[in-house]
């Protein structure tokens, strides 16, 4: 009996080392953790996490830039409005591969779905830090239904889509756990989940823009437009393609040993393909933006200070990366396409921050005088972003995302 216990214990030990410590022993594993990146991460977390705790002791004012006139700061501007379009990766790549049959993208689909899933998860975490009473997060689902509210739609969709994406990613988790039978069930719902993902994503990506339709007197006319839901959806599509390039570039750069030969062998070709898609998407978006100006006849506003900033956004962060993509695709230069992708991703964040922070309340007397966020808000944002990266790395290190698990068929 004692022997049986010992065997069980030994089994658990080897499972633990295999699954969680990547096959290393404790001392080996902890020694491996001592890297410059981890030290910086630890420093950031040691400042940010106590601040999050203090928020629940002393109040939201401690960690937020938000005020009565500016109800939303970086948590939503960066985390939710910036994070969600960059997390359209799962829906865009799954649609391209499963529905439209772009079979060449197969090696990258899992990475895209994981990027999407974690992106939404962390958008919700940013929201939880920002909410006055986060423990009531489920209220729109059970307690009160604000059916006329666009945010009601966003709440339902983000919650549902988070579940859908977890299911979409579950085959990787189940292969890691070697749970063959459950994995078979999980792969049977792939197509259903992908189509659900398209519906939910089209609606809530555009709904995030539609939220600002309620602020016609507050949002600068160059950014306020009846087209804003279309702007948000259309930019999310190219954002997703650019984000997949960015994430795969970083993953190949820093976690090359976790990528399989198929992934490494096809990543350049895939990057060029994604760049081509992103390029087309960006020209479409650029034309839409120009039509938006024409529709509201806002040409005159372009020669105002806000107009200059608007031009920087659509020329420097939309048209320029689109041209870089064009050049990269024409020359088959992976490096150029990657450079364009980084610029495009930054451009998306610039646009969402413009809508949620820079151009909102533009007509208040002292607008932009307090644009620099307080260090505490920045520290909390950095901490959440750090945890995001750590969890991403933790999963890539262990689960078959950029490689194939031998013995499992495609799905």
């Amino acid at each position, binding site marked *: 009996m004692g022997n049986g216990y010992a065997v069980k214990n030994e089994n658990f030990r080897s499972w633990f080392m295999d699954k969680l410590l990547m096959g290393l022993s404790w001392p080996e594993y902890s020694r491996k953790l001592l890297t410059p990146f981890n030290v910086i991460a630890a420093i950031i977390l040691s400042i940010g996490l106590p601040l999050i705790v203090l928020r629940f002791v002393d109040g939201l004012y401690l960690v937020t830039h938000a005020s009565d006139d500016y109800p939303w700061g970086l948590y939503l501007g960066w985390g939710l409005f910036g994070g969600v379009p960059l997390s359209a990766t799962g829906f865009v790549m799954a649609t391209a591969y499963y529905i439209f049959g772009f079979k060449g993208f197969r090696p990258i689909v899992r990475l895209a779905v994981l990027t999407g899933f974690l992106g939404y998860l962390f958008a919700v975490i940013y929201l939880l830090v920002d909410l006055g009473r986060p423990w009531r997060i489920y209220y729109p689902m059970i307690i009160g239904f604000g059916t006329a509210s666009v945010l009601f739609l966003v709440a339902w969709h983000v919650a549902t889509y988070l579940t859908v994406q977890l299911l979409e990613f579950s085959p990787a988790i189940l292969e890691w756990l070697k749970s063959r039978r459950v994995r078979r069930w999980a792969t049977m719902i792939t197509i259903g989940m992908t189509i659900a993902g398209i519906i939910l994503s089209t609606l809530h990506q555009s709904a995030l823009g539609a939220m600002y339709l*309620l602020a016609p007197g507050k949002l600068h006319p160059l950014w306020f437009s009846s087209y804003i839901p279309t702007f948000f959806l259309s930019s999310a599509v190219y954002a997703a393609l650019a984000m997949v390039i960015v994430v795969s570039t970083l993953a190949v750069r820093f976690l090359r040993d976790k990528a399989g030969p198929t992934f490494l062998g096809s990543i350049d070709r895939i990057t060029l393909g994604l760049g081509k898609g992103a390029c087309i998407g960006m020209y479409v978006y650029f034309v839409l933006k120009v039509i938006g100006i024409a529709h509201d006849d806002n040409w005159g506003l372009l020669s105002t200070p806000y107009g200059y900033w608007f031009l920087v956004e659509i020329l420097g962060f939309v048209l320029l990366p689109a041209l870089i993509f064009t050049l990269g695709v024409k020359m088959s230069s992976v490096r150029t396409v990657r450079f364009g992708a980084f610029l495009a991703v930054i451009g998306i964040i610039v646009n969402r921050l413009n809508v949620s922070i820079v151009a909102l309340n533009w007509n208040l007397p002292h607008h932009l005088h307090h644009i620099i966020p307080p260090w505490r808000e920045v520290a909390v944002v950095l901490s959440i972003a750090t945890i995001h990266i750590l969890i991403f790395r933790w999963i890539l290190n262990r689960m078959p995302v950029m490689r194939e698990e031998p013995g499992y068929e495609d799905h």
Partner: protein
Amino acid sequence: MDNEHRTDKEHEAVKNGGGNSDCKKRLTLTRRGFLGTVASVGGAALISNAKEACGYKEFAGYPDSFGCLTDFTRCVGCRSCEKACNEANNLEKPQVPFDDKSVFEETRRPNAHAYTVVNRYENPKDKSNPIYRKMQCNHCKEPGCATACPIHAYSKTPEGAVFYDESLCFGCRYCMTACPFYVPSFDYWSALEPKIVKCTMCRDRIKKGGITACAEACPTGAITFGKREDLIKVARERIGKNPDKYVDHIYGEHEVGGTNWMYVSGVPFEQLGFPSHLPTTPLVEQTKGFLAAVPVVLTVWPALFGMCYAALRHRNEQDKQDKEKEASQGKEEMKNG
């Protein structure tokens, strides 16, 4: 002197005559039709939900709802309204007393400790005679805050007030983004029970037949309480009798579909910090088109993308069959050859 006397009388008339008779009417109505109201509210809730789902519902505002009219030509900046509001709503006493005029040095806004504030603006017509503007929730007929709220924590009450229910709120603050008048404020200093703070239009006092504390306290008759329809008439009359004194604009009559708190002024409203370029339709109209597209996406997308997938599978199978055929043909040719 004569002018002042008349305005006071006019004020009293609306306050007493209008207010009291309305209250009586309302009380009898409440007694008589209580059960009927319960039934119709229940029925209306069902029907209105169904209508809302279609995305098109016209709401002209509650008839006989109350409101206030603030006349900036009468306000002298004594802050009696701020004091009365603070007391009537049991708010925290401010550090600077209410008779201290130094607060006018900066522009204030309603906050977690004050439902209403008065600000001072320069009078372009007469520099020695500044204009004072009282600010509080305007109690829109179809409020943007209520449209924004994902949990339905806001409701427009038949009495006219826009009511906020703290017990439903999770503190997302979308109502603050949506409010065109920068009214709702948030209690950022409460760790575990932060809530939205805004004017309630003394809902409980009105229900008991009273008038708002600020209107009652105003010594110059700058705040007139009454039925919204009556207030518009009063405002028109004042502008009509003194076209030189007033600008020809009742702020709140049409802004974002109309508000229950309205204003008349001697100078254009944008000079007093009022948002000027607001639509005349309620904010809910802005998002109706978008929400109407939701059912379309929900039904058309699965069909469309399901078809795409079906076509893809069909082509794959066709390719497979063609290949098999070719292979078997090839074999036969080999045999024959």
